């Protein structure tokens, strides 16, 4: 006897897309969120491309804090390079956006339970058959034919199912971010700072949030996090660059920049989004990839249940389709991230100086790569392999 066809653990974009896709195929679906709110706290730079979002839905004005047309990058010695954005992009209000996605899922028939902390799996004959969870301190259990784990960077549910997901220090960014008010910035521009003085082994971002506000954050690579503290780096940055800015929200978190897990399914379970390590290892962006993979997981649920096979074999379409949709590209990006990881501050300054001497309209992606390649020839191989799909 089962209570549901599908239990989705986690109410972020990946979870809501998975739940929506499953319910839209007629599956009885519940989504469990550990926090008291869907979409809060926001641990995210909130940037997304128009093209990425539009694959799933028409962007709505209430989700959008700012529309981006320009990109600025600053090297360690503060050389500024401006680029025109290759396509349009948005800085979202994730709190509103995540709500909208969950609301959309609920309108497709998904039940949602907040404050539901999953602390165990029901596993019978090596097949996941449901979850144990706490609701406001009270233990509860639910049985289902399939569980979709969209439980974020911690990826605990996957581990409960025996899928190893612990991240190496090299593959995580230790992050801190603030939303600030009273800041004068170009509301159409995203601004990146690279180099060890700003964000060792990562980058610092200043993203506009409309109405003289900004989302400012940074990630320090795990391998360097012993000697740097992202909270202190952000506050030093604010003091130096934007002393008048007022912090309205502050939050910390980890960004997984690992390769996607080798195994994203088990018998009766699929992992998706950050939990499956699907964040772009170069940009740190994970909204669109999570939505895409979540949607695929939801669709595959329906197919597997129709065929009556929820074993790893029965779920094999999920990793197959994810690989085609973005997984292959993700592997190439991870290789590129390994190459650019150890570019020194001096090399970054030289790259910035060379690019600053070119005309802005000539600063294409190709020009950037050839400039980087003068310092790091290996990147040519990585990019060639990425384009060749190797």
């Amino acid at each position, binding site marked *: 006897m089962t209570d549901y066809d599908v239990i989705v653990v986690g109410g972020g974009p990946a979870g809501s897309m998975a739940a929506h896709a499953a319910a839209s195929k007629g599956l009885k679906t519940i989504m469990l969120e550990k926090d008291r709110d869907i979409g809060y706290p926001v641990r995210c730079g909130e940037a997304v491309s128009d093209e990425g979002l539009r694959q799933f839905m028409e962007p709505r004005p209430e989700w959008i804090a700012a529309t981006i047309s320009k990109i600025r990058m600053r090297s360690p010695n503060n050389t500024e390079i401006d680029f025109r954005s290759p396509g349009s992009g948005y800085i979202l209000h994730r709190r509103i956006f995540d709500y909208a996605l969950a609301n959309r899922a609920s309108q497709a028939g998904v039940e949602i339970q907040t404050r539901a902390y999953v602390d165990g799996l029901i596993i019978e004959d090596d097949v996941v058959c449901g979850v144990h969870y706490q609701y406001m301190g009270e233990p509860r259990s639910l049985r289902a034919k399939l569980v979709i784990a969209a439980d974020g960077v*911690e990826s605990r549910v996957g581990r409960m199912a025996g899928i190893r997901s612990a*991240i190496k220090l090299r593959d*995580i960014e230790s992050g801190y971010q603030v939303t600030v008010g009273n800041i004068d910035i170009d509301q159409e521009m995203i601004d990146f700072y690279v180099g060890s003085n700003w964000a060792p082994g990562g980058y610092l971002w200043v993203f506009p949030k409309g109405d003289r506000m900004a989302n400012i954050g940074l990630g*320090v690579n795990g391998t360097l996090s012993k000697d740097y503290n*992202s909270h202190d780096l952000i506050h030093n940055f604010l003091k130096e660059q934007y002393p008048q800015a007022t912090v309205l929200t502050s939050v910390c978190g980890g960004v997984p920049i690992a390769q996607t897990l080798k195994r994203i399914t088990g018998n009766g379970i699929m992992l998706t989004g950050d939990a499956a390590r699907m964040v772009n290892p170069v940009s740190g962006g994970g909204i669109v990839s999570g939505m895409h993979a979540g949607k695929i997981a939801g669709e595959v649920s329906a197919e597997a249940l129709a065929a009556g096979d929820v074993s790893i074999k029965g779920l094999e379409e999920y990793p197959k389709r994810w690989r085609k949709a973005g997984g292959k590209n993700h592997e190439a990006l991870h290789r590129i991230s390994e190459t650019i990881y150890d570019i020194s501050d001096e090399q970054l300054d030289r790259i910035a100086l060379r690019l600053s001497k070119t005309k802005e309209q000539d600063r294409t992606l190709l020009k950037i790569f050839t400039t980087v390649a003068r310092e790091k020839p290996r990147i040519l191989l990585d990019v060639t392999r990425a384009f060749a799909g190797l």
Partner: protein
Amino acid sequence: MILIKENRCDFCGTCVAVCPVDAIELREADISIIHETCIDCDICIWVCPIDVLSSDNKPEDKND
């Protein structure tokens, strides 16, 4: 042994993600170390963005 400044924690889960032996138990606003499982590798101490964790046998660490 890993120590926790509980009232400083933001419950972000970064330490949980890197723990190689699943020795960190994190609920909505409740964090604890499973000392029998912990191997004192200290990587949770390093990766924490706001220095919530420390070790009682390594006074030279950044958290003192």
